[in-house]
């Protein structure tokens, strides 16, 4: 049984210009000790999925349907009070932009201690300090730096501190929203190595949210591709990269130049993602898709299991798969 399962999740933002259906029937499954990559362009709803799964959506947004099952419990029906016992202990979030996630006027160590003590009311402060030192060591920061302020940390160290904080209460699931954007390549590769190491050491289950398909190739075991509020393809990492079946996945893969191998001509889709206040009928990629047919416009394709464990929402997945093979 999956550790976390999201079924038909829907969430809306209510704005003065109308209702934005940011996520519309998202299905995801995370197995224990696996790392799931959630990939898409900006505005596709990937951060909304992360926030919804913590029930941390902003006040103008609401979950309008579906279930989030974590360890047998449905988070959607939980009250805020009940969620307080679940957040950090069962599921925790590494926010995007570590630079801004730490409070600049408190010492890094104190911020971690505070997080631990908020969630373990009966813990003695000395114990929490001890735990903080352990955590910092775990993520590769010298524990003596706990007395430093965030501005004394480099970008990579801040990111490590934020990860340490998220691990403070031994969560089952760690959601990392763009864990390495704004970091330099060498720092990025070290953070990725740290994430891999933590996974091996703690058996952590991860959801990595990113726009960068080359990053997920390095740390994820499964990948879900998101477009305009929907999951369009889901499968094992190796399969997504070797035989993508959705035209959008195909396009994304073609848009990342590689530092290895021959230089391929990059390809892209015409046009822009749709306005989610008023999404197109049928398949949402239809206006941009090179494989589009009449039926794509009329009825949305089901999210079906094309081959074992590899799901796709496209009528023409066979054709897409063929063309990718010819291409590469």
């Amino acid at each position: 049984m999956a550790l976390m399962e999201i079924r038909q999740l829907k969430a809306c933002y209510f704005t003065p210009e109308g209702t934005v259906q940011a996520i519309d029937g998202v299905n995801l499954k995370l197995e224990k000790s696996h790392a799931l990559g959630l990939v898409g362009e900006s505005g596709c709803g990937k951060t909304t999925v992360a926030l919804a799964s913590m029930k941390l959506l902003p006040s103008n947004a609401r979950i309008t349907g579906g279930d989030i099952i974590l360890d047998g419990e449905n988070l959607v029906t939980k009250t805020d009070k009940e969620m307080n016992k679940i957040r950090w202990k069962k599921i925790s979030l590494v926010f995007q932009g570590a630079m801004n996630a730490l409070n600049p006027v408190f010492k890094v160590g104190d911020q971690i201690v505070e997080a631990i003590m908020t969630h373990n009311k009966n813990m003695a402060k000395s114990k929490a300090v001890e735990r903080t030192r352990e955590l910092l060591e775990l993520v590769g920061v010298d524990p003596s730096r706990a007395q430093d302020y965030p501005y004394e940390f480099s970008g990579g160290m801040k990111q490590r501190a934020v990860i340490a904080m998220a691990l403070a209460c031994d969560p089952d699931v760690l959601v990392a929203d763009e864990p390495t954007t704004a970091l330099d390549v060498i720092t990025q590769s070290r953070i990725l190595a740290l994430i891999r190491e933590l996974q091996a050491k703690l058996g952590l289950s991860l959801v990595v949210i990113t726009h960068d398909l080359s990053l997920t190739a390095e740390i994820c075991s499964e990948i879900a591709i998101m477009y305009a509020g929907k999951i369009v393809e889901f499968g094992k990492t190796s399969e997504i990269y070797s035989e993508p079946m959705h035209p959008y996945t195909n396009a994304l893969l073609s848009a990342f130049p590689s530092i290895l191998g021959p230089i391929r001509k990059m390809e892209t889709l015409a046009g822009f993602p749709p306005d989610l206040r008023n999404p197109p009928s049928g398949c949402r990629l239809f206006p941009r898709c090179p494989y589009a047919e009449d039926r794509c416009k009329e009825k949305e394709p089901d999210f079906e299991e094309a081959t074992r464990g590899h799901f796709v929402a496209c009528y023409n997945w066979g054709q897409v798969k063929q063309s990718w093979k010819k291409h590469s």
Partner: protein
Amino acid sequence: MEETLVVQDLEKRFPVSRGFFRKTLWLRAVDRVSFTIKRDEMVGLAGESGCGKTTTGRTVLKLFEPSGGRILFQGSDITNLKPSDMKQYRRHMQMVFQDPYRSLNPRKNVMNILSLPINTYNLANSRSEKLEMIMNVLDQVRLHPPERYLYKYPHELSGGERQRVALARVLVLSPKLIVADEPVSMLDALVRISMLDLLLDLKKKTGFACLFITHDLALARYTCDRIGIMYLGRIVEMGSKDAVITHPAHPYTKALISAVPVPNPSARKVQFNVKGDLPSPIDTPSGCPFHPRCPYADDRCREEEQQLVRIDADHYVACYKHNLI
């Protein structure tokens, strides 16, 4: 003159004040940097943040006064020109900035934004001529149909469309040199590729020289003809993209390349790790600036500064141990 831009031993230092009674220190943002860019050539400058790539780009355009060295633009020395004398050159040396959300005036529409450079250099004799130039350049950057964009304000445009307007603003002057500072790092993957292809296409058509500043080596490999790798204000390796990316000779270049994630889970990568973090640019290490982090460093590296030496037809490296690496 085939070389559009020649930069020789360019230096840029910034004073760093550390309090009233203490001595002012100097931050060497650009330290004896030399390179040339030919017509229709795209040269990349790559490195981590703080390595001086942006400062190099801006100093080349004289947006910062150089502290030393020479800049030759189409054969004429512009190093010590006064701002008033720069005007005639500036038309031909332009810049595209990283963030299209901040580089366009939010209170001006596309028509106003594109009129400004035309008016500044009196390029049009009449209103209709100006309009024609604007329509033309919008068409060139593939904002179709142009009339739909004329009266739009930046907030009505997507990131990709804004960056195209920023590029159009430069192109309308038919520049000979464009410095593009991370022009696609704020854009989404699919938009990024179409923007780069547009830039490459236009370069081929109009033949401008381009200095492409990026932190993304995979992207530099895709777009540039030659690549220079910068570390603490210096170029540590420079050459054709094949030389630098496929046969890196400097340990720092190797470390950078092995850190780039590859969009292919089955690819085998060479692991090459370096120690520590970037040192402070105010108090740079003696000798080779990379020696505290370099696994090959010895006493000679600590004492002796490394000069760029030629090791192949178009491949220069500042490391005397390049044969061992």
